[in-house]
């Protein structure tokens, strides 16, 4: 084979860089939605490359549920300092305090759905016309239908049956006042691609992804970290396990898996042998067959 071809990771990298530059060219006030998870870290890393030697021309926006892993916040603040970009925080706690949303009740209450209001409020307040996310089409069946440039109406809603056709590499980012776009530069990446890329590029990630000892509770078929936000019932018991997280989100619903993988190499090996999808440990997706589709229609990430 000739040397004039790109490996799949190089091709995905160039595709993502193209999309990020297209965002910068087509929108007035884009931000990167930054959760502290590996996907948004990879998107941020790609943005650094897309605009080098200029710095990233976007702010990072974090929708803070208030139920954080302390490690995530420390990681976020360090990264912001390194990149020299602005951080915008949308706070779910503030949305609750202002009466914009009401906290869910009961043991399995989470702030997952409440994030939608906080996110849309922040988009409106900061006049954001494009929110760049780390969503991938392999994550979930509703996401498999998502565009790179995904239009949201003035209520922030996604209309999956009326999406703009997306052909070749021509991306239509036109919108009317009050509407915005979600853009997903790593749409075509799989979980495995993300890990291989993190390894290849030696990208720094929060230590939570590596196996570590932690106090956890067995709930919904995964190990939920013990935290001040967790309400235990009588049958639940806090134990210490060596675990790691495959995704990072709200600490009350992000389940870990038992693992010995404490280096990036070991994670890549473990993921390639894995027989469960990563969102299998997210109780937000387990609520119903349409859980993701319904949340996305309302304006979820």
């Amino acid at each position, binding site marked *: 084979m000739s040397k004039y071809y790109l490996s799949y990771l190089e091709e995905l990298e160039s595709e993502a860089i193209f999309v990020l530059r297209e965002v910068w060219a087509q929108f007035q006030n884009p931000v990167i939605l930054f959760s502290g998870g590996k996907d948004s870290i990879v998107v941020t890393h790609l943005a650094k490359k897309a605009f080098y030697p200029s710095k990233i021309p976007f702010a990072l926006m974090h929708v803070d549920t208030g139920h954080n892993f302390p490690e995530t916040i420390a990681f976020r603040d360090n990264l912001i300092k390194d990149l020299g970009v602005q951080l915008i925080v949308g706070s779910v706690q503030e949305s609750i305090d202002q009466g914009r949303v009401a906290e869910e009740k009961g043991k399995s209450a989470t702030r997952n759905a409440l994030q939608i209001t906080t996110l849309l409020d922040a988009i409106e307040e900061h006049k954001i016309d494009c929110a760049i996310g780390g969503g991938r089409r392999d994550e979930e069946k509703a996401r498999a*239908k998502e565009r790179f440039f995904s239009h949201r109406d003035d209520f922030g809603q996604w209309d999956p049956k009326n999406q703009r056709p997306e052909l*070749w590499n021509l991306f239509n980012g036109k919108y009317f006042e009050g509407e915005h776009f979600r853009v997903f530069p790593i749409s075509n990446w799989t979980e495995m691609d993300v890990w291989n890329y993190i390894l290849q590029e030696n990208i720094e990630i929060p230590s939570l992804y590596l196996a570590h000892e932690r106090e956890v509770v067995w709930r919904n078929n995964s190990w939920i970290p013990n935290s001040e936000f967790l309400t235990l019932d009588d049958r639940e018991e806090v134990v210490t396990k060596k675990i790691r997280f495959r995704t990072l989100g709200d600490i009350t619903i992000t389940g870990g898996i038992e693992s010995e993988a404490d280096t990036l190499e070991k994670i890549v090996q473990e993921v390639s042998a894995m027989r469960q*999808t990563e969102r299998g440990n997210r109780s937000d997706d387990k609520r119903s067959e349409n859980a993701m589709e319904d949340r996305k229609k309302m304006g979820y990430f």
Partner: protein
Amino acid sequence: MEIERNELLRFSTAGSVDDGKSTLIGRLLYDSKSIFEDQLEAIESTSRKKGHDGVDLALFTDGLRDEREQGITIDVAYRYFTTPKRKFIIADTPGHVQYTRNMVTGASTANAAIILIDARHGVIEQTKRHAFIASLLHIPHVIVCVNKMDLVDFSEEVFTTIRSQFEAFAAKLLIRDIRFIPISALLGDNVVNRSENMPWYQDGPLLHTLETMHISSDLNKVDARFPVQTVLRPQREGFIDYRGYAGRIASGFYRVGDQVTVLPSGFSSRIKSIKGPNGELEEAFAPMSVALELEDDIDVSRGDMIVRSNNMPESSQDVEVMLCWLNNRPAQPRAKYTLMHTSNEQKAMIKEVMYKYDINTMERIKDDVELKMNDISKVKLRTTKPLLIDAYKDNRYTGSLILIDDQTNETVAAGMII
């Protein structure tokens, strides 16, 4: 740890639920071990609820609620799998006539198209439509899978007859590379594993074909085209005078020192540096995203194109295109649309509809020139300023364009320059 330098192959699948398209995709994913346990469990439980025996692999590709309820595919869905040889992206497109727009969308970036034929029915109108669209979009490789061979006793004669039917029809089309494979998606014959029921078939199963077909020549490596996306001016220490033209190489090669011309201004310069995703490069090629720096300080902005001085695209305000209409609102005569072509944007008008295709028979219709959803027609466009174009058959990225309706901001048409 060494990360494999495998290539990426994008393919589209066209066919209806009845042809077993979803089953085929399910089979590819299942037999290549790309389905996770929790996904399989979910499918098993749904299969039981619906009263199927065993696992209905077709359920794996169901996406939106309406699709599950109606048992159809409404929109393009993307699926991913990897083998030790390649990474694959499947654009799973609906087969119904009303979804021509989705088939065109899914095919626009594909290296290969899989066309499914039900062995019991042979070449039908839908097959012809799929082949026509594959040809129109110049998909480099077409793989015709004759499915449900188990229902025709794995008969070689049935397969050969269908093959001849298809070849007779395809002679009128522009398809560079066609292959035929007899399969049973339901039983797995010739999908991932070689069929024991069809010893008369000597070539490889579908997955083997996808893994080994030569694709690195699919991209145009001759005509150097670099549409400028944005200009990088860091104005920080070490880069005070740096001005990088950022973009993705649409086709061809660029080397440091190359004599280049910036269009439409026509100013010439040499390439001073090329920055790739991983630093300085001596040469770069499609489809890499890079930033080019020129020796001379000339005015370059988004929408311009940097080309090699001895190989220029055509510059024209009058463009003939094959246009696929993608919107419920029909084309308005002499209305102005926003036209996107590479990183360039213009106003454009449909000056004349020359003819429309009956996409089932490929006949030209000249007396009905209203462009409605899913219509494919040959039209003349007029733009306010010249476009820098190549023929679509030579260059997918400088030969393609879309039209946007300014009243709705929707993408209403896709055009391939003739």
